[in-house]
């Protein structure tokens, strides 16, 4: 009825054309979506003017349009904008179609974003949901198994420990191989920023819940716009931004607890006593393990302490995130407040972080847009004051090896510091006492922010200038109590104040145009300057006078020392870059990128590096012949080739420097680093070919092959002694490394009914690497140049990087229980510690001992997995949802040094439970030789301790329940979800050590895969709420 009236009215208005032209009038209408639902907050604007309005909650609008208005543009978020001509009608109703998500999905690459369909490079995108609300210490840990070809290993469960990220295998032999991380265009300081004994992960200062997406740039084409620093790949992190017309308030919280995810079994008190004494008596020595009279009542106290249980606890975790986002057409904002408290399962170990973020974006007028993205966080880490690992009271060395037949607390309630009834010269310090009485804390404040202005010069041409700042200041405070542990007898305090500062400034010109309808061009030119600096101020006090007063000054300590310095970072980068993306009929796509960088770390002559790349892609689905394959929605074939670089090469390596030294009483200046004026960028040449497909409208498949050769790797090259350089070494670009592999990523809804959904995301990567050459001698290289006997893997030309290099274990002789090894010729030699004699197994003749020269290169056995990836599945049934994430890695080895020390026969510390399998009778087949105290040769470094690390890990399991709309609407909230989750629930593996991902040497390339007394990873259970308003 109303419609007829309106029609009549409009007809009537037609009869007054002249009057019409001169007057404004009101038009109305309703905007609906494809299902007939009203679209609120849709923008209705008269094209070419500022005249507009938004639809109300019913989708209705009423707009007073000026005379001469020609058309309306109606748009809404996530919907395709429509334009309709304004005619004489009064009412203009419109149906908006949802945007084809995959067609319109944008990907952040370098300094711009481009449409996913136009992408010619290899980029994996991980949505922010994968990292949000996961109980991890740092967001990079949540990336495990999420992107094909990206291997993320957390070295241990210690707060702040290294997270090693390897994209497509190792990118270098001795230089840094961690990818560049860029947060909203800001290159951020990362890596291990710990100053004293505990590591500190630079990425832990970021709040994971603020992350919108993480793009992993993998091939040369995607990376080359960061060419100079992107040789190991680039992680582009984008934080959440506000959306016009969508004002939301979200509160997310979870609370739960941590526990140790694995437990190595060691002997209990009774078995310990008998085993140690058997060890001793077999060697003709007196028994030393005995229960003692701890409480002085005249009776022996049969205490049985499980030190692991004593030191491990259920640590509380909690996270609270309040995020507000929204905005108008002009200004959008995203702001959040976050508090995260992660109490590790190890006593005392903890990380607390509070952070605040403000992202603001404002269109001041139609040609100027400005914005800021900023975050401030304060992270307090409570590290272990024992030192970690192999220090005697460290975790987990202490709890694994401390005597089980003594108690944790003495009769007076204080920590028990004695050795019970055991007859030995000294004891391990009480691990619980040391963990609680010593500390190594870090208080870090970090500001990461950027401010930009973007000007539209002419249609399609934008100029953007952005200034970035990453400022970190940290205060480390360490104390060793004079009563126990490393500080026993004197007491020690150390403080370090350190700063790391990165500022950068870039300017870009971006041109977008569509020429003659068929040619899409996106051109970029830019310049960027980056400067990184650092400093530290260190103080130490030794010999504390009164443990109550720990401030380091001469009143409180016997000796006070101070030292200032640069914390290893002092460099800068100037870059000039440009790129063109071209698409013809949206079918044939090509991209060319070029970047030219100067890094201060190289000498003037070799400072500049040029990094070009090119890629082409063919969208087959745009071709007519593909129309018959209706199930193929998108099929793109792409290939790329390019050169990227690496300048992560240390501190002024090219500079020739002198340092002060002494000639007895006279001071001298001697050459310390000969430098190398010819030192230049490490370069990677990468070839990539891949297929992206979208099938059946909902299944995404990506299959890629890559081949990357790294040349000019910076290595220490042994040179003639006649040159007279310290160590006869010069740092030169001489190594070559090759990586090739295949990646597959599949994402598909397996089952999709009205009530039940099941989606599977699967990715798999196969990688093979080979060291092509090392130095001029073709030497095999170790990670530590000083003692080649202290490491277990090498980089040898012709072999894979990190191939293990060990003496071969020959088993235990069932006849006599003696340990056996193979010499370099394969002869089995057995060792009898009673006579210190080595004899050949075959004929019993005496022979020489097995030595470092009998080490053999174990071809194909490396810590780099051959196949790795993840499998994520999500289910939803009515209001319930569930998700399970698996991570897997096959075809790699780990050297279990932890286990080797738990079988040491030459001390009386606690041993692995498996020592009960020791040989006792002739004919017994076992892999633990007869107990004989003092035999330190049987447990020496050998293949006995090299184990397959293959594993499948249930990384995350989540079950949630979302309150149905009917209930929520009543309470006027948009969303309420309850969930429970478990992180690191279970690991299926045959590996017997701490963890198959264990990595004792931190972020290294050759020496990965050594399990060397780092704590287990934690398992975390949480319950949480997602509330949206």
């Amino acid at each position, binding site marked *: 009825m109303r419609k007829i009236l309106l029609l009549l009215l409009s007809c009537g208005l037609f009869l007054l054309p002249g009057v019409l032209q001169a007057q404004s009038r009101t038009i109305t209408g309703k905007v609906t979506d494809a299902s007939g639902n009203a679209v609120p907050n849709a923008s209705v604007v008269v094209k070419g003017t500022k005249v507009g309005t938004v639809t109300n909650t019913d989708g209705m609008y009423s707009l007073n349009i000026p005379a001469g208005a020609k058309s309306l543009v109606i748009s809404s978020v996530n919907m395709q904008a429509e334009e309709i001509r304004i005619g004489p009608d009064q009412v203009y109703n419109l149906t908006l179609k949802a945007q084809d998500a995959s067609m319109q999905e944008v990907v952040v690459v370098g300094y711009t974003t481009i449409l996913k369909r136009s992408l010619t490079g290899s980029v994996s995108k991980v949505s922010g949901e994968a990292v949000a609300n996961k109980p991890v210490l740092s967001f990079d840990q949540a990336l495990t198994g999420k992107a094909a070809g990206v291997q993320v290993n957390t070295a241990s469960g210690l707060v702040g420990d290294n997270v090693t990220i390897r994209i497509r295998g190792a990118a270098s032999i001795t230089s840094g191989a961690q990818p560049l991380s860029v947060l909203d265009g800001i290159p951020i300081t990362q890596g291990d920023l710990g100053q004293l004994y505990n590591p500190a992960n630079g990425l832990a200062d970021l709040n994971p819940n603020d992350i919108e997406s993480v793009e992993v740039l993998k091939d040369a084409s995607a990376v080359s716009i960061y060419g100079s620093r992107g040789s190991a790949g680039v992680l582009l992190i984008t934080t959440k931004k506000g959306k016009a017309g969508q004002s939301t308030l979200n509160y997310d919280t979870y609370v739960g607890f941590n526990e140790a995810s694995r437990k190595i079994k060691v002997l209990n008190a009774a078995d310990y006593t008998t085993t140690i004494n058997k060890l001793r008596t077999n060697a003709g020595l007196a028994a030393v393990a005995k229960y003692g009279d701890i409480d002085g009542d005249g009776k022996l106290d049969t205490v049985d302490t499980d030190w692991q249980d004593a030191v491990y606890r259920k640590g509380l975790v909690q996270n609270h995130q309040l995020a507000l986002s929204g905005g108008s057409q002009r200004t959008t904002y995203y702001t959040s407040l976050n508090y995260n408290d992660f109490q590790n399962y190890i006593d005392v170990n903890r990380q607390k972080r509070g952070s605040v973020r403000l992202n603001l974006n404002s269109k001041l007028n139609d040609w100027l847009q400005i914005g800021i993205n900023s975050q401030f966080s304060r992270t307090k880490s409570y590290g272990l004051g024992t030192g970690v690992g192999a220090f005697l009271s460290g975790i987990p060395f202490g709890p694994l090896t401390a005597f089980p037949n003594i108690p944790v607390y003495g009769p007076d309630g204080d920590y028990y510091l004695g050795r019970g009834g055991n007859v030995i010269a000294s004891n391990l310090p009480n691990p619980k006492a040391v963990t609680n009485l010593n500390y190594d804390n870090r208080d870090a404040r970090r500001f990461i922010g950027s401010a930009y202005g973007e000007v539209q*010069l002419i249609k399609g041409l934008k*100029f953007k*200038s952005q200034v970035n700042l990453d400022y970190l200041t940290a205060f480390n405070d360490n104390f060793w109590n004079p009563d126990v542990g490393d500080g026993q007898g004197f007491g020690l305090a150390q403080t370090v104040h350190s700063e790391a500062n990165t500022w950068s*400034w870039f*300017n870009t010109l971006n041109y977008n145009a569509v020429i003659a309808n068929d040619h899409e061009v996106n051109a970029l030119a830019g*310049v960027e*300057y*980056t*400067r990184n600096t650092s400093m530290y101020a260190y103080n130490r006090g030794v010999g504390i006078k009164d443990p109550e007063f720990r401030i380091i000054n001469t009143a409180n300590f016997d000796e006070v020392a101070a030292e200032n*310095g*640069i914390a290893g970072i*002092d*460099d*800068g*980068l*100037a870059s000039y870059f440009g790129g063109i993306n071209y698409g013809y009929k949206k079918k044939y796509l090509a991209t060319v990128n070029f970047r030219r960088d*100067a*890094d*201060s770390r190289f000498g003037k002559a070799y*400072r500049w590096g040029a990094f070009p790349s090119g890629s082409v892609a063919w969208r087959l689905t745009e071709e007519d012949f593909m129309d018959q394959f209706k199930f193929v929605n998108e099929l793109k074939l792409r290939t790329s080739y390019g050169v990227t670089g690496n300048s992560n090469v240390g*501190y*002024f390596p090219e*500079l*020739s*420097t*002198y*340092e*002060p*030294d*002494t*000639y*007895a*009483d*006279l*001071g*001298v*200046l*001697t*050459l*310390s*680093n*000969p*430098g*190398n*004026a*010819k030192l230049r960028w490490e370069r990677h040449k990468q070839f990539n070919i891949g297929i992206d497909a979208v099938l059946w409208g909902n299944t995404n498949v990506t299959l890629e092959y890559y081949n990357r050769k790294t040349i000019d790797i910076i290595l220490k*090259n*042994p*040179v*003639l*002694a*006649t*040159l*007279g*350089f310290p160590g*006869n070494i*010069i740092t*030169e670009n001489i190594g070559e490394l090759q990586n090739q592999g295949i990646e597959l990523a599949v994402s598909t809804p397996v089952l999709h009914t009205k009530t039940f959904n099941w989606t599977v995301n699967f990715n798999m990567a196969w990688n093979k690497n080979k060291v092509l050459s090392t130095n*001029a*001698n073709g030497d095999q290289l170790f990670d530590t140049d000083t003692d080649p006997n202290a490491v277990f893997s090498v980089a040898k030309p012709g072999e894979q990087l990190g191939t293990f290099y060990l003496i071969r274990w020959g088993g235990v002789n069932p006849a006599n229980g003696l340990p056996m090894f193979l010499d370099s010729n394969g002869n089995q030699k057995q060792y009898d510690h009673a006579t210190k004699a080595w004899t050949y197994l075959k004929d019993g003749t005496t022979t020489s001992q097995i030595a470092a020269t009998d080490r053999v290169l174990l071809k194909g056995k490396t810590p780099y997995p051959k196949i790795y990836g993840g499998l994520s599945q999500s289910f939803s049934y009515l209001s319930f949802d569930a998700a399970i994430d698996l991570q897997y890695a096959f075809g790699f080895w780990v050297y279990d040094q932890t286990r080797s020390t738990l079988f040491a026969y030459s001390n009386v510390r606690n041993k692995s439970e498996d020592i009960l399998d020791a040989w006792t009778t002739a004919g017994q087949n076992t892999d633990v030789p007869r107990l004989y105290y003092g035999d330190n040769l049987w447990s020496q470094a050998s293949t006995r301790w090299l184990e397959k690390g293959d594993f499948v890990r249930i990384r995350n399991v989540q079950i949630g329940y979302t309150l149905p709309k009917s209930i929520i609407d009543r309470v006027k909230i948009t969303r309420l979800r309850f969930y429970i989750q478990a992180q690191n629930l279970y690991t299926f593996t045959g590996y017997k050590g701490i963890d198959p991902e264990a990595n004792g040497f931190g972020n290294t390339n050759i020496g990965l895969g050594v399990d060397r007394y780092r704590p287990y990873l934690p398992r975390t259970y949480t319950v949480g709420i997602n509330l949206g308003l």
Partner: protein
Amino acid sequence: MHTILLYIFFAIAVIGSSCQKKVTEIKPQDLLSSDLAFSTPERIEKVVLAAYDGLQSREFLGGRSLVYVDVLGEDIFDRTLYFGELSRFSLLGSSGIASDSWTAGYFAIASANRAIAGIEANISKLEAAKAKELIAECKFVRAVANFYLINFFGQTFVFTADGSQPGIPLITQSFTSNDAAANQPRSSVANIYNAVITDLTEALADLPDTYNDTYNDKTRGTKGSAASLLSRVYLYKADYTNAKKYAKDVIDGTYGDYELQATVDAVFADYTTAETIWSIPHNSTDNPNTNNALPMHYYPTGRADLAISNSFISTVTNPYFAADDKRRGMIIPGVAATNTTAYKFTRKYTDITNRADWAPIIRYAEVLLNYAEAQARLATGVDADAIAKLNTVRDRAKAATTLSYTIASFASKQALIDAILGERRIELAFEGHRFWDLMRTKAAVTNKYDSDGSTLLPSQPFGAKKNIFPIPQIEIDKSKGVLSQNDGY
């Protein structure tokens, strides 16, 4: 609006170019770059001192060089076989002793060459006289290093009539990169001796007589030390005329007053007496440490690796070492703590606690013996002048009741020479001379005991292949065939 934008672009370009300079040209705050090392006279002098520091290396003149020359001789035996097959003349091409000595020696040479190059490039920063003096010091260091290296790695000069046997590469250039010019073939022994003599002679002209500071005088090159060393070099070269000439200048006091101390152990208690001409200094914080310091090897409460052999003690095998010679007071028994009571040791190096004993390289007693030997060989008969110098040394050590030598004491010129060599053996024992003195006199090593002190090793003839070290195999490999290995290795 467009003009404003143009201005902005222009401003960005200007700021950009200064930004580029600022971010790419960064100087380290905590390192001294090479150009700065030569920026002031004080720093240049310190760079020159680094050349001496190179000689002080624990693998070289800080102690080991002296030890090796004596381990190869018969006066000590390697009780613990700490030096492996060295005492048995059966090193391998992979020997660490050889490679460490080679590396340390060439590092000292390179330090000297670097200092010379730096001085020449920055000559304007120094006074002319000081520059000459510093360059002279570098040449002195270079000569010392070359002399010790050539005698370790090449047969002694008199092995051939003209010293043409293979020696070591002669390096006089400073290198700043992996320069192919460092890959030199082995020069002949004669060439190296010429280079040593040239360096010392040129240094002699410009070195000071004194630094007006006793410490510097005893640890750095002086005219006295250059001349003394020249007398030894010429002696090894069998050029007795020149050996006598340079020794005479030192004895006559042309370069300062040197004189013997009243007792031998006074020289080892204090290294800055008038008898010391040049030594390598150490102190409690800068010394070769527990595995390389001279006292650690020689002293019974240290490692006690090197015990005095019966060859030295017995008057049968060491006929000039009288039973009442005061120098026998420098021989002490071992101690129970190290299970060495059965052995004898020297107490020339005693500082086990701080290991601050200096390494004696040249002392006045040696110059007297150089002169005596040169004069004795030049003269036609038994020479009185030679006997006088011999007596100066011997009289300090002989018993009061023993008579000094006279012309009548010697039946022939050769007898006098033998007496001088015999005195040299005793006086300079355990100071790194014995084996090379045997070699330069074409003598064989006899009466040499194995590590138990009682089993005799076979006699090692003059000119045997393993009298010298192997060229380190790793250096031969790195040179890709430019260096050739010594025979027998």
